[in-house]
C-alpha cells in the first residue's frame, strides 16, 4: 500500500498543483496530507469541484479533483458540457467503492458501472494498484496533456493506507 504522502509527492513531481474534491475514506490519508500542506479546497459537490478545476486550469494550474465514484454520477454533466467541450482537463482521482461487488448496498450499482460511465464519456482511465501508482500518474499527466481531456485514475480499496 502507498501512503497519502507518497501519493501526493508523485502528483506534485508530475506537475499537478491544484487540489480540490469531496472526501472518501479510501483517500483520507491523502486528504489529511493535503490539508496539512495547505491549499486544498474542500468543495461541496463533485460537479462544483469540476467547475473549480476548470477555472484553475484556465488560470495556469494542473488540477486534481478527488471524489468517490458516487460523485462521478454527480459530475456527469459538468464533465460532458464543460470539461470535454471546452478542452479543460483535470485529473479525476476516483475512489472505487463497490469494487468487485463487495460493499454496502448503496455502492454496488455505481461500483459496477463506474468504468462503463467513463467509457461512455470517452474519458481515458486506469485502475491503480500499489505497484503502479507512479507510472499511472505519469500516464495520466501525459494523456491529459495530449488529449486536453479529463483523465481518471480509479482507486480500489487496498491501494492507499
Amino acid at each position, binding site marked *: 500500500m502507498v501512503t497519502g504522502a507518497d501519493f501526493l509527492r508523485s502528483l506534485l513531481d508530475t506537475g499537478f498543483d491544484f487540489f480540490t474534491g469531496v472526501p472518501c475514506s479510501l483517500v483520507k490519508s491523502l486528504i489529511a496530507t493535503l490539508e496539512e500542506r495547505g491549499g486544498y*479546497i474542500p*468543495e*461541496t459537490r463533485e460537479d*462544483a469541484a469540476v*467547475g473549480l*478545476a476548470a*477555472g484553475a486550469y*484556465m*488560470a495556469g494550474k494542473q488540477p486534481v479533483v478527488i471524489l468517490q465514484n458516487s460523485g462521478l454520477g454527480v459530475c456527469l454533466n459538468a464533465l460532458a458540457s*464543460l470539461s470535454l467541450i471546452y478542452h479543460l482537463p483535470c485529473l479525476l482521482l476516483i475512489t472505487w467503492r463497490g469494487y468487485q461487488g463487495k460493499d454496502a448496498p448503496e455502492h454496488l450499482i455505481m461500483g459496477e458501472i463506474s468504468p462503463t460511465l467513463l467509457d461512455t464519456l470517452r474519458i481515458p482511465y486506469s485502475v491503480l494498484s500499489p505497484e503502479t501508482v507512479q507510472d499511472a500518474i505519469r500516464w495520466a499527466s501525459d494523456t491529459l496533456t495530449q488529449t486536453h481531456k479529463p483523465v481518471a485514475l480509479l482507486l480500489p480499496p487496498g491501494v492507499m493506507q
Partner: protein
Amino acid sequence: MKLAEALSAIIPVLRDELVVHANGFISRESFNLNDRPGNFYMIGSMGLASSIALGVALNRPDRKVVVFDGDGNVLMNLGSVALIGALQPANFFHVVFDNEVYGSTGNQRTISGQVALEEIARSSGYRRAQRVDSAAALRSAAQEFFVQPGPSFLLIKIEPDFAERKIGRITHEPPQIAARFVAAITRTEQ
C-alpha cells in the same frame, strides 16, 4: 429594468476584469452587447459559473474576477456561495441578475421571489451583499462595486422577457472561448 438594460449599466464600469457568464440569456445578451476576450461564456453546466470563477480567482489573486450569474444558476449551486463566503477571495465579485424565472426555457418560476439570495450570501460570509431594483440604483451601486475588496454580492432585480426575443447564440466554439479567456488572464502579466 430588463437584462439588457442592467448589463448596459455594468459593462461600461468594467476595465480588465475577467467575467465568467452563466448559461442562457446572460451569456447571449452580454455576448451580443459587448463581446470581449475577458468574457468566458459557460454555455452548458448550469450552476457552475461561480465555481469556474472561483477557480480563476483563487489562482490569480492579482486579477478581479466577476461572475454574471442568474437566480436559477445560484439556486442550483448554493454550496458554491457558501464556499466563496468561507474562503473570502478579495478579488471575487458576484453579480446576480434575478428575474425569478428560468428565462431561456420559457420563463418557468424559480423560488428567488420567496428567498433573498443576497441574505444567503451575507450569512455565508461575503464581505458585502446588496440588492438593487432600479436602473438608477444600479448605476450608482455599479460605480463602487468593483472598487471595494470582495467577496461581494450584487443582486439586481430585473423583469423577465415575456416577449419572444431572438437573441443570437454565442458564435465562438467552446475551445476558442476558453483559449482567448486564458490569453486574457495571462495578458496583463508584466
